[in-house]
């Protein structure tokens, strides 16, 4: 199927294709919502990750805390946010990281009304920036 939504810039729409690709990565992330799993992951990250048949690239993205990279590999933000929470990162700090902004800068942008929709509707607008 044609995916019109792929024209939206800086956005990964979590559709069935992404969901399929990211399944084990997302299942790994959601497991961290429970304290006992967080402890097991902390005690031995590699052994804990090995419980989930992720791809090597996904595993590396987890090691690197490559937040956009995880999304690219089929992760969904609500899942990866569980990994961020495990690291003590708030949702706002996580958002900042994904935009490449410093936390303070991102927070200021939000306080001033957030990122404007103008110039952020389609990929062509980003390319012409």
């Amino acid at each position, binding site marked *: 199927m044609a995916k019109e939504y792929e024209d939206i810039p800086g*956005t990964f729409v979590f559709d069935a294709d992404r969901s399929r690709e990211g399944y084990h990565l997302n299942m790994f992330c*959601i497991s961290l919502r429970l304290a006992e799993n967080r402890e097991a992951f902390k005690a031995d990250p590699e052994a804990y990750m090995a419980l989930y048949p992720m791809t090597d690239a996904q595993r590396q993205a987890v090691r690197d805390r490559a937040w956009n990279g995880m999304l690219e590999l089929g992760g969904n933000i609500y899942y990866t946010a569980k990994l961020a929470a495990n690291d003590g990162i708030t*949702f706002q700090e996580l*958002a900042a990281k*994904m935009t490449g902004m410093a936390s303070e800068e991102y927070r200021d942008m939000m306080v001033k009304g957030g990122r404007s929709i103008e110039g952020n509707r389609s990929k062509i607008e980003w390319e012409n920036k």
Partner: protein
Amino acid sequence: MAYVKAGVGCSHVPAIGVAMDTGITEQPYWQPVFKGFEKSRQWMKDNKPDVIFLVYNDHCTAFSAEVIPTFALGCAAEFQPADEGWGPRPVPVVKGHQKLASHIAQSVILDEFDLTIMNKMEVDHGLTVPLSVMFGDVEDEWPCPVIPLAVNVVQYPAPTGNRCYQLGKAVRRAIDSYEEDINVMVFGTGGMSHQLQAQRAGLINPEFDKRFLDLLTEDPVAGSQITHLEYMREAGSEGIELVMWHVMRGALNEKVEEVHRHYHVPASNTAVGHVILENR
């Protein structure tokens, strides 16, 4: 017979829950958010519901990637607040209303909506934050039972706005045919414009949000026809949560009066929107 007099539309930002749970609602950052709920809390006292039918979405907490229901109706006796990765919110367990919930389930399935019935379910901030903002701080229990309807808005495609609106109408028919004489209030939650992910995170579109609220009150059919593409492009990838407000609107009369509206940017990454609609 049971009846619906009013509906509430309301964001369910997790940080709002954290602000209440940590007692920082008076700080300058949060004060304008909570200011908007002062009138609502009084209104809730004046219009006390017997049951709340609450439309929300789970945020990959109670539902993992294993099972993704489009519409999941909570028919359990109670729903535990879920641990979302930083411990469960310190709020009371949510009591369900099993008889009304099963009545609605039977009625809407015979009305050709393909529900998933949940007899065991935890609930995340999507459900508890709207209760907190509308009721204020509570002690040992919530003021009334709640029937949760969890909608998939995480994996594309969410149900269409039209489908949500039609489901609201079916829920209303079900409530109207329930024998007991009780006041059922309907909550639609989530949104408004926000994007939590990737390079476009932080997107806010107040013009879109205002138009959405205007349509919701005045021309709900037109509102229900907004496409997924438009939500994702104009209101951010997580702005798609707004489809859930159409379920609430579908359960109200064709004509409603907007008795309260509040809109503020930001709460964490999102715009906070809130309306109270009364049947006319």
